């Protein structure tokens, strides 16, 4: 009760604080006058009495201030006053304010933007209920054909579901596409194929209607579809769709539900159709022959995530070892075991979605943090420079009774206002950066966890601004507020200047060292990027167009697809200028994300290798000439290599060399394991470097004839000496003339496909270079500012020296030598640290050693040049001063 009344009295005082302050002042004035009167009565002269009474009370301003401290609202009051004062001062010095705000905006903006990427990639929980209990089961597969490749057979999805209640829900999903053809111009949409428990596993259920029922997963059941909110709005105007049918790939699907707005998992899905268990080719081959299926599960509430992972792994090892001897090649078995031990049997979903980019995002975030430190060092430097200049002002305020703590608070308020201004500007620029940062992260992740400026990011930026403001302003505030009343008022600034000089030089040294680190990082990435760009990818991409076709009649017999492909190729080849047309189940340079293990069944004794992961493609014979990939040995595929013919394969040159060093790969047998008969190698193709370069070793590339198992969707590639536009219309015309209802999508020039495949590396390099250039500019600015301000303070000294006969060279040296040493030490330390830290970037490099001497040499050259300009330019200007002018001004 009494506590409450204390607060009440405080509040009243706060509301009428101006009047209360006036009262307090009146009270103190009365006291002083009464005291003076008493003293006069005791015989003091009026002047002495006035002086003594004032002395007894002490500094009046300070007394009022201390009395008001009792109100407890002094902090609020002071803050208001501090802000007003800071605002006035900052407006008066627009140049200084602008320099600090822009510097901080760069640092805070870059760090905030990278934080938004980091947040999306690993910090912000996925927008599903209890996302931490949701994970990918690496050791569980969904067998996709009724005759499973036993190689791929690990645990089944049903085994995981039956694992003694460890998982409350288990589901498999794959992303594919279907043609929405209930309209004039068929539309290709992204379709998530998911087992019936998918929505429950993810924990998001339809907003309208229902999800999948158990019977929807039976191969014989009626076809149903769940729409995404966005497709429902976009294509159906949000009208009542439940119970209606839509037609996809000439099949009718009953709409049973619509997902909530924003839900598009996996990979920007527009709709979801059930995947049946066991999965049969008949219901699964909706878009590809082989869809990459992922199994996810939700851990039951009663089990910890770690325990679930261990239980699953044990169960899996047990199942694997229980299989009949000879089911697996021993080498493949050990490979499986290694993989699961390495990755864990249960991997959190978020970790798998952004896995391969997290290193880059973390590294870039670290770089922005360095950039921010450099920006702060610069700001501290600028503030220390100000400290010297405003020493007189501070002196006056100290005389008038300002206490040191109060002064420090005032100065910190100023620096926090500056950093908040920087943050504001930085955040204003952040949306531009976010668009750019999207390229850093894989689309699978972005569809679930987009990069965005949200409350979390804003909170981060604000916290950063406060920390930066106090961090950068602390030393200057402490320095500036030192009680140097005497020296300051005497007009002698050199004492203050000298004290802060050493600190300022140290800051420049730190800036230079950190900049070196950033420059080395950028140099290594730039060098790698050049190496990638210069690499011969082994194919000719000019004048090659690509397009994607998904057959509307996916129930067509495979022969039908072949006939259609042949017809399209014939029409295209008939056009003058078109040189070659080919088909493939997938395009080179498109991330396929899956490796197929293979072994050479009858390799030369002594060269027997363990099973190896490979990229495999199904291609037509025309694929090789269309992309300009030479067949070095043997033959290409023909239409005769169909399902009735003996299985054949083409391998790339490195694979042939590795297993058959004598060059006799032709005629040997290659097996993908399992029950399928091995294929005879009939050709050797030149290597295509379509893997994102930078791996230790090349992934073998295997080709199988498209004619043997024609997939339900193919990529078309055509080369021709025509313009891009002509090629495009030729492809469209040819496809439409064969089948009017056939959608053609993803029409892109091969050059763009290759270009896009390098996007993550390019983005890494560009960001790193940007950060390094900013750091360099900041460090140069810092160096320049320190020298020119120091020189300005020593102008008088320079003038006298010049008058006494000092040469200009001497003066230049005098103005710059102290800092030149610091810069040299900074560069040396920076290079040393970079040398030690360069390994962290090793996985992002390509054909560049972390200790690449040319890169280090180039960084050194750039730094020395910039440092020379930044130190000498102001020194030369200072040395040019006319002694007479200088001395006269003082």
């Amino acid at each position, binding site marked *: 009760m009494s506590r409450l009344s204390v607060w009440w009295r405080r509040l009243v005082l706060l509301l009428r604080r101006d009047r209360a302050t006036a009262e307090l002042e009146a009270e103190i004035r*009365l*006291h002083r006058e009464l005291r003076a009167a*008493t003293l006069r009565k005791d015989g003091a002269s009026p002047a002495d009495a006035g002086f003594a009474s004032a002395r007894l009370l002490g500094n009046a301003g300070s007394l009022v201030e*201390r*009395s008001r401290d009792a109100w407890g609202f002094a902090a609020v009051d002071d803050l208001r006053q501090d802000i007003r004062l800071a605002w006035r001062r900052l407006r008066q010095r627009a140049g200084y304010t602008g320099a600090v705000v822009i510097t901080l905006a760069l640092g805070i903006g870059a760090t905030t933007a990278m934080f938004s990427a980091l947040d999306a990639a690993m910090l912000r929980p996925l927008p599903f209920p209890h996302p931490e209990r949701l994970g990918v089961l690496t050791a569980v597969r969904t067998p996709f054909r009724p005759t499973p490749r036993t190689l791929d057979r690990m645990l089944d999805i049903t085994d995981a579901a039956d694992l003694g209640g460890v998982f409350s829900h288990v589901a498999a999903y794959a992303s594919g596409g279907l043609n929405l053809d209930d309209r004039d111009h068929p539309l290709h949409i992204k379709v998530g194929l998911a087992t019936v428990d998918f929505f429950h596993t993810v924990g998001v259920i339809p907003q309208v209607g229902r999800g999948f029922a158990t019977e929807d997963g039976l191969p014989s059941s009626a076809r149903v579809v769940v729409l995404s909110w966005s497709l429902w709005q976009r294509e159906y105007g949000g009208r009542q769709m439940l119970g209606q049918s839509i037609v996809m790939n000439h099949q009718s699907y009953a709409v049973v539900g619509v997902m909530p707005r924003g839900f598009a998992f996996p990979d920007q899905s527009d709709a979801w159709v059930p995947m049946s268990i066991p999965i049969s080719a008949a219901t699964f081959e909706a878009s590809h022959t082989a869809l990459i299926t992922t199994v996810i599960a939700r851990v039951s509430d009663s089990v910890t995530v770690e325990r679930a992972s261990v239980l699953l792994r044990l169960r899996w090892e047990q199942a694997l070892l229980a299989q009949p001897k000879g089911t697996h090649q021993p080498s493949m078995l050990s490979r499986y075991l290694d993989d699961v031990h390495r990755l864990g049997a249960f991997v959190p979903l978020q970790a798998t979605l952004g896995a391969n980019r997290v290193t880059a995002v973390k590294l870039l975030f670290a770089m922005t943090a360095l950039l921010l430190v450099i920006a702060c060092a610069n700001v501290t430097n600028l503030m220390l420079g100000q400290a010297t200049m405003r020493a007189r002002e501070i002196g006056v305020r100290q005389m008038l009774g300002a206490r040191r703590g109060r002064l420090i608070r005032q100065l910190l308020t100023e620096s926090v206002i500056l950093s908040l201004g920087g943050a504001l500007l930085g955040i204003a620029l952040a949306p531009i950066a976010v668009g750019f940062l999207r390229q850093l992260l894989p689309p699978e992740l972005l569809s679930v966890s987009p990069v965005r400026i949200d409350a979390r990011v804003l909170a981060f930026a604000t916290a950063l601004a406060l920390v930066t403001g106090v961090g950068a302003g602390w030393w200057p505030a402490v320095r500036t507020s030192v009680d140097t009343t005497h020296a300051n008022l005497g007009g002698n600034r050199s004492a203050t200047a000298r004290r802060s000089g050493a600190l300022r030089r140290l800051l420049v040294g730190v800036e230079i060292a950190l900049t070196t680190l950033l420059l080395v990082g950028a140099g290594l990435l730039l060098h790698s990027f050049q190496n990638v760009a210069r690499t011969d990818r082994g194919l000719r991409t000019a004048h090659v167009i690509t397009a994607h076709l998904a057959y509307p009649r996916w129930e067509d017999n495979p022969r039908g697809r072949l006939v259609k492909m042949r017809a399209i190729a014939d029409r295209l080849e008939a056009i003058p200028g078109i040189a070659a047309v080919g088909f493939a189940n997938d395009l080179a340079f498109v991330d396929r994300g899956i490796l197929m293990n293979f072994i050479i069944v009858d390799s030369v004794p002594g060269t027997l290798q363990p099973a190896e992961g490979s990229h495999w493609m199904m291609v037509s014979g025309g694929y090789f000439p269309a992309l300009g990939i030479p067949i070095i040995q043997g033959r290409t595929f023909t239409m005769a290599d169909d399902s009735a013919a003996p299985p054949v394969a083409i391998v790339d040159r490195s694979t042939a060399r590795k297993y058959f060093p004598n060059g006799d790969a032709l005629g040997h047998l290659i097996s993908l394991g399992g029950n399928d008969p091995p294929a005879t190698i009939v050709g050797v193709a030149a290597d295509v470097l379509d893997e994102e370069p930078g791996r230790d070793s090349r992934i073998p590339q295997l080709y199988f004839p498209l004619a043997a198992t024609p997939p339900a969707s193919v990529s078309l590639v055509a080369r021709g000496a025509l313009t891009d536009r002509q090629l495009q219309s030729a492809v469209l015309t040819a496809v439409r003339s064969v089948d009017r209802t056939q959608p053609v999508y993803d029409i892109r020039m091969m050059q763009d496909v290759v270009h896009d495949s390098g996007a993550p590396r390019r983005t890494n390099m560009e960001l790193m270079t940007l950060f390094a250039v900013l750091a360099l500019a900041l460090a140069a600015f810092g160096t320049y500012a320190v020298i020119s301000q120091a020189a300005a303070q020593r102008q008088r000294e320079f003038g006298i020296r010049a008058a006494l006969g000092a040469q200009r060279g001497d003066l230049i040296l005098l103005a710059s030598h102290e800092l030149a040493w610091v810069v040299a030490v900074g560069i040396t330390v920076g290079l040393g640290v970079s040398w030690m830290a360069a390994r962290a970037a090793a996985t992002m490099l390509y054909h560049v050693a972390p200790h690449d001497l040319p890169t280090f040499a180039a960084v050194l050259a750039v730094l020395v040049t910039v440092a020379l300009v930044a130190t000498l330019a102001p020194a030369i200007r200072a040395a040019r001063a006319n002694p007479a002018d200088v001395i006269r001004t003082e």
Partner: protein
Amino acid sequence: MAPTRDPIPPGTLDMLILQTVARLREGHGFEIAEAIRRASAEVLQVEEGSLYPALQRLLIKGWLVGTWGRTDENRKARYYRITASGKKQLAVELDSYRRVSVAIAAVLRPA
């Protein structure tokens, strides 16, 4: 020549002010300072710089109330009076002060 004065021991200022105001019934700042000085036979000197912060503190705590009035010379002044809770607080402080000073005296008593 003013007699030598001892500064008021820290922490006792609030108690002295409360006690003085209680005895004066009503007084402004200068009167309180002078009353303390006189009552202590000129030994205790209220450091005038600390009187007003202390008064503000006691006002906030609710142990004193201030009302504006006129001095004999017809000048505006704030007159302080002790409140019921101020009296209670004074009793608590005096009690604890007595116990401490008795204890100190016992320690210092010559053997």
